[in-house]
């Protein structure tokens, strides 16, 4: 707020980018309701998503050198006002979310037209945009309470979007209800944690919080805050023991929504976890080291094995991928628990690589639902010959999920193993490789169903239209591209990891 004596210098469009990042999708959502037409819903949603992608790319380009952009909402300077704060870590997340959304939307148009009845389309895309802007908001904001508000915006619209699957299977309703209960408990725990932080420090700005916690040091209130925040965000991340909402929610949601959520929602939650564990709390606090080493690490390992094991025995492709998601989140948490730069780099890079891999796979599932009417293995028998392009994409993305050299998944697992060895934890490194073998089994089952089983004689399944194939293949090619050309992802992930591990200093800028 400028006083009368201060002459105001007008901000340029570049200065406004952090606000526009959220405002564009956020204005587009009520615009769809106001115009009301089904014809306008999709174009507006796509335009907003595309604009966000461009803005995110511009933001990432300007912070890759380690600088920080700070935007003051309403002209109120932090720590009093709400601050939007872009650094390498969250610019990376912003780019991931907006890119996935822009690729998934063209796919959604065809897929949703078949899975959701037409009279719901306008409100469907409104909810989608709200979910999208909520996720972007979580990533961009530098205010602890604002994180909660955006988290709830995205969660509430996610519940609605998942429930839209009820037209195909009524279990979408119970899945959505369970997620609502678990998600709300998680969000409320998160608020309690923020409340404790506010009690201990008297501020809500993340950078300021980090600073004051570093000054004050350890106290019981801060420990309580840490516990509540880790559990609360852990629920949103689908950390192993509190992951039960995820498989059902992903299985019964409309395919396009599953692809979008699998690639973004849990990833954004992981980002919040990273931000709080490393930037706000000091990684040097002994209780934090203990939490990571004795709680998160074992649970991450259990997730990698237990959920991969469950995935092997599924007879539904979509359910299998959902369980595999929980297992893959285990890898990300494992990287975080190493508490060294390589480990956090692995977490950030796996966040990205797993995002694109799962987006490709879940979109392919949607293709089978579109053409064959289901994603059970027996409905997919021999479809490798009927739907060659989709099935080839499944194979490539599946290889990336396993972590075969030449694909994106290999890079993240490679860095993760390096992190484990750097720490001297070679048993963990062996376990990482071991759980990848389970991935080989569950991906092999799909490949066997698609290619080695006979196609039913009377099958009239045909390849899906281009509007679905192109997004699937964009993601699949991205899996290969980021597996061969690792400069961009590695440098961004390393910059992000360095910024995060620098603790409160990282929040202040170098």
């Amino acid at each position, binding site marked *: 707020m400028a006083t009368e004596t201060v002459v105001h210098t007008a*901000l340029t469009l570049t200065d406004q980018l952090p606000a526009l990042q959220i405002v564009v999708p956020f204005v587009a959502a*009520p615009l769809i309701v106001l115009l009301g037409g089904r014809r306008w819903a999709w174009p507006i949603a796509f335009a907003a998503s595309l604009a966000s992608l461009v803005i995110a790319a511009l933001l990432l380009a300007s912070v890759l050198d380690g600088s920080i952009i700070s935007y003051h*909402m309403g002209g109120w300077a932090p720590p009093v006002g709400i601050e939007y704060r872009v650094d390498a870590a969250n610019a990376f997340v912003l780019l991931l979310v907006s890119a996935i959304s822009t690729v998934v939307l063209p796919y959604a148009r065809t897929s949703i037209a078949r899975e959701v009845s037409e009279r719901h389309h306008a409100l469907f895309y409104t909810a989608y945009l709200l979910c999208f802007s909520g996720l972007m908001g979580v990533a961009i904001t530098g205010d602890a309470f604002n994180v909660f508000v955006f988290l709830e915006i995205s969660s509430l619209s996610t519940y609605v979007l998942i429930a839209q699957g009820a037209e195909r299977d009524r279990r979408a309703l119970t899945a959505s209800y369970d997620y609502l209960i678990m998600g709300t408990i998680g969000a409320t725990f998160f608020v309690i944690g923020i409340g404790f932080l506010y009690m201990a420090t008297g501020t809500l700005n993340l950078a300021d919080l980090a600073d004051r916690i570093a000054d004050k040091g350890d106290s019981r209130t801060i420990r309580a805050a840490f516990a509540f925040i880790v559990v609360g965000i852990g629920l949103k991340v689908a950390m192993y023991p509190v992951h039960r909402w995820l498989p059902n929610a992903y299985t019964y949601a409309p395919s396009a929504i599953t692809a979008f959520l699998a690639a973004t929602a849990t990833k954004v939650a992981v980002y919040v976890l990273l931000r709080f564990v490393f930037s706000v709390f000091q990684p040097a606090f002994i209780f934090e080291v203990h939490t990571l080493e004795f709680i998160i690490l074992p649970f991450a390992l259990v997730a990698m094995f237990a959920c991969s094991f469950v995935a092997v025995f599924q007879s539904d492709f979509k359910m299998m991928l959902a369980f595999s998601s929980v297992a893959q989140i285990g890898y990300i948490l494992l990287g975080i628990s190493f508490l060294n730069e390589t480990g956090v780099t692995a977490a950030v890079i796996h966040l990205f690589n797993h995002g694109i891999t799962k987006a490709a796979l879940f979109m392919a599932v949607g293709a089978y639902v579109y053409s064959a009417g289901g994603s059970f293995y027996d409905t997919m028998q021999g479809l490798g010959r009927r739907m060659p392009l989709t099935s080839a994409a499944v194979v490539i993305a599946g290889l990336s999920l396993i972590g075969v050299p030449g694909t994106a998944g290999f890079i993240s697992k490679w860095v993760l193993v390096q992190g484990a060895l750097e720490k001297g934890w070679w048993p963990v490194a062996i376990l990482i490789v071991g759980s990848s073998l389970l991935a080989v089994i569950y991906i092999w089952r799909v490949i066997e169903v698609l290619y080695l089983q006979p196609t039913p004689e009377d099958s009239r399944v045909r390849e899906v239209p281009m509007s679905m194939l192109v997004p699937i293949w964009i993601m699949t090619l991205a899996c290969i591209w980021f597996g061969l050309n690792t400069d961009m992802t590695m440098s961004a992930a390393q910059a992000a990891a360095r910024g995060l591990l620098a603790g409160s200093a990282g929040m202040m800028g170098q």
Partner: protein
Amino acid sequence: MRHHLILRVVTKLLIGVIMLFALYVQFHGDYSPGGGFQAGVIMSVAFIIYSVVFSLADAQKVLPPWFVHKLMAVGLLLYALTGVYSMFAGYNYLDYDAINPEHPVSGQHNGIILIELGVGITVTAVMVTIFYAFASRTPPMDDEAW
């Protein structure tokens, strides 16, 4: 509720007062406790009482569901576009100084009134929508059930 004469008369008297009070809370919100959230809820109470005492159909004649949906969007857009306006004026998003650059204090005043109006409209519309959504799913209650 055709036979509940007292309820009907009292409701008719009260609805005007409730709406007036809502407007008071709304537009006095920058000086005293109040504002869009509270005013919106009070305003929606007027419509909800009307539809409880008279009938849902009557209330929907006054405030049809499609119109409430549009109102929701209008309120939100009013809020967001106020911010966009200040962006166009070269200020930060939602910096109300932009509304009156010569007198930032009056700019702040007008800005908060606009924003709260947006909030008020949206909250009214959302509360009424929630009520409509639930009320229209249950069979209407007859007099004997009371």
